[in-house]
């Protein structure tokens, strides 16, 4: 008995699906390579095609056909059903490709690891400002129907602030949100704030390099072209210790 004889003898069993699961997979793989068996299996399927009608029919309930047709027509197409799976598969393939590439390029992996370590260190540093804050200031901001706020954590030990701006919409075209330190000798320009109602803007700022002590902070809406040291726009928030 040759190896192929096994396939010849089990063609009907394959069509009947009485092979064991492993045998069924083996047979299916064989069909890809063997035209003769593939042809014979198709012929057997046709010859035994009516066999399920040995079971008596079951009369469906009234309206079954219309109801069933409605469900068929309401179903998303096969591709739409499979899109999430396809997307997941694509992501997996990309991830696998990335992983393989990284494995082959140890230098890139080390650089990535170093970058992640730096990010983690920055987060830990920011968290330390919040945990060590000796003063917390907050004020509400109302603007164009939006209710936002400004929150400042001051860490005297490290001379840094954590500043959180929340609840404000993105600045209109041609304008920017500008954060200022208020000192005994005047306003000191700090950073622009990228506001977004979806999530707060979060900044860790060093104290300005001026001799005069810091007394408070302000948030203004400035023309984007204003690069001077003095605020010229609308003041939205003003807090003083």
């Amino acid at each position: 008995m040759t190896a192929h004889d096994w396939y010849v003898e089990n063609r009907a069993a394959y069509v009947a699906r009485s092979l064991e699961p492993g045998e069924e997979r083996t047979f299916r793989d064989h069909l890809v390579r063997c035209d003769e068996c593939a042809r014979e299996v198709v012929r057997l399927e046709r010859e035994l095609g009516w066999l399920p009608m040995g079971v008596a029919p079951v009369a469906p309930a009234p309206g079954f056909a219309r109801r069933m047709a409605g469900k068929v027509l309401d179903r998303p197409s096969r591709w739409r059903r499979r899109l999430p799976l396809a997307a997941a598969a694509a992501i997996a393939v990309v991830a696998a490709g990335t992983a393989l590439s990284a494995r082959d390029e140890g230098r890139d992996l080390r650089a990535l690891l170093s970058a992640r370590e730096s990010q983690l260190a920055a987060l830990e540093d920011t968290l330390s400002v919040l945990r060590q804050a000796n003063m917390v200031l907050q004020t509400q901001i109302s603007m164009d129907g939006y209710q936002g706020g400004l929150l400042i954590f001051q860490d005297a030990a490290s001379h840094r602030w954590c500043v959180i701006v929340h609840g404000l919409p993105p600045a209109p075209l041609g304008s920017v949100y500008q954060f200022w330190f208020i000192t005994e000798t005047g306003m000191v320009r700090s950073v622009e704030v990228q506001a977004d109602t979806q999530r707060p803007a979060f900044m860790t700022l060093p104290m300005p390099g001026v001799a005069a002590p810091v007394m408070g902070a302000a948030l203004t809406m400035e023309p984007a072209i204003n690069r001077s040291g003095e605020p010229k726009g609308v003041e939205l928030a003003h807090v003083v210790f």
Partner: protein
Amino acid sequence: MPHPEPPPAGTPGPSSDRPVAWRALVLAGEASLRRRLVARDEQALVELIELASPWLLGITQSMLSDSDEAEEVVLEVFASAWERVGSLGVEHDALLPWLLRIARNRAIDRLRRRRRWRLKLARAEAYGALPPDRVRASEVDEAAHPGWHVHESVHAALESLPAEQREAVRLAYFQGLTHSEIARQLAIPMGTVKTRLRLAFDKLRVALVPIKDWVL
């Protein structure tokens, strides 16, 4: 391979004794239905469901012993057919055997996923040695169930098998059991199972030949 035996005596040939004109009519009818399905004619889908669902529900309910799950499978079959009918070649099988094959394969997949053979078999035992006739032959005719004559022919072909071969076919084809599961169920060697099935399928292939050109 054993040689096929001649068809059992008395097995009716559903289409061989029918007028050629009638056969041409149903062939044309199926071709038309298939064309309309390919053209996404929703009324054609309704007609296909009306014609095929009694038989699809019959096989799936018999295999799954669960009318709700059987209906789910039938829905999958029609959805699959609706998507794939355009890719069927003109030389492909008649529509109903194609649908029946999808239904049976889906039902077997579900049975194997369930991994609840003992419960399933306990239920199936109540159905007797062959899939049950829920409708008595005297109560139906071709008008009530198009394809009824095919059922009669197939049923007769199954009945003509020796009892031990019929039982093997019932467990393999209508209950989705594998060789080893049938051997355990019947407490016989696996080689005996394979032999019985091989002999049975050889006989059935010959007995079902006259049905091959029956179409919806």
